[in-house]
């Protein structure tokens, strides 16, 4: 069904009948740390702002020069400090301002995800997206989607041991052991 809701004003009772039932109170408001590269995704977020594309207040943006700067420890730290999710935004494959930083981010995130899985952190809590400078609308969509998913998933509850420094360091070593010069398929996981 194409969206005709904005096209004609429905009589109130009809509109009420058709409206989705989202009035139920959602007690949990997630917090998402978003690492955005300055050239593409951060600029896109500025664009979203300029176009007044409202999105979930769950998002807290940390600006990096490049998604390739993303140290996996940042993600771990974000979770440890109470983030419910981490979003990483970089340039589309082939568009990196620094040639291939986004590919490096892709590999790091892939590895990190398996590590987080071992710690019982659901894969939906870590998301990588390619968002170009002109895709303000995608920032809005991705942020809202992720906030919604995390709302359903509930708050992050780390096990009693939490994220121990040792595990973090192990993960870091594991990541270093991969050959980052392998060509990797340029897709968003």
């Amino acid at each position, binding site marked *: 069904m194409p969206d005709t809701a904005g*096209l*004609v004003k429905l009589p109130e009772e009809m509109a009420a009948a058709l409206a989705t039932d989202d009035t139920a109170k959602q007690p949990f408001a997630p917090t998402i740390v978003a690492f955005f590269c300055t050239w593409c995704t951060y600029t896109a977020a500025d664009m979203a702002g300029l176009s007044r594309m409202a999105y979930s207040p769950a998002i807290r943006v940390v600006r990096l020069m490049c998604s390739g700067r993303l140290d996996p420890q940042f993600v771990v730290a974000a979770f440890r400090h109470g983030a419910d999710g981490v979003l990483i935004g970089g340039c589309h494959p082939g568009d990196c301002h620094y040639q291939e930083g986004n590919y490096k981010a892709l590999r790091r995130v892939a590895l990190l995800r398996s590590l987080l899985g071992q710690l019982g952190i659901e894969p939906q809590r870590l998301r990588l997206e390619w968002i170009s400078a002109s895709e303000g609308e995608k920032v809005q969509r991705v942020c809202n989607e992720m906030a919604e998913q995390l709302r359903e998933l509930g708050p992050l509850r780390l096990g009693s041991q939490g994220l121990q420094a040792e595990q973090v360091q192990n993960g870091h070593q594991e990541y270093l052991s991969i050959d980052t010069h392998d060509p990797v398929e340029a897709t968003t996981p």
Partner: protein
Amino acid sequence: MTDYMEYSPHVLNALRLGGDYEEALISRAIWACTSCYACTLYCPKKIPITDAIYTLKRAAMQAGVYPKHFVTPTLVREFAHFVHESGRNSEAWMSIRLYLKTRPSQLLRYGPLGLRLVLRGRMSLRRERIHRPDELRRVLDALEVNAGGRP
């Protein structure tokens, strides 16, 4: 078809933009729409005009503000009634009932044409129905807005 509408599709849209929703609701233009989707296809702004007209028709029927001499709302009701009851629509029966309800005089005028169809085996006087109309009814009734069909 726009020649037969007092408002062409873009005027219907202009009414919306100007906030004159009710004027569009009582127009005969929405009932003249044959839902051929030409406006939707040619619209450079991809406005789903045809579907919007469907919405208008629906709202007009609910509000009971459609032009009374127009056959379309009756046709729509009759059609839905047939389908709801028997799962299929029977051309002949529906035409006859419709003429009796709206324009009995026209029945005589089109009678000969109907007869020609019957003679050529192209109009069945049998009432078509499916084997499990109750099954279909259950599905349709579950979607009745006022019948707890909400998820």
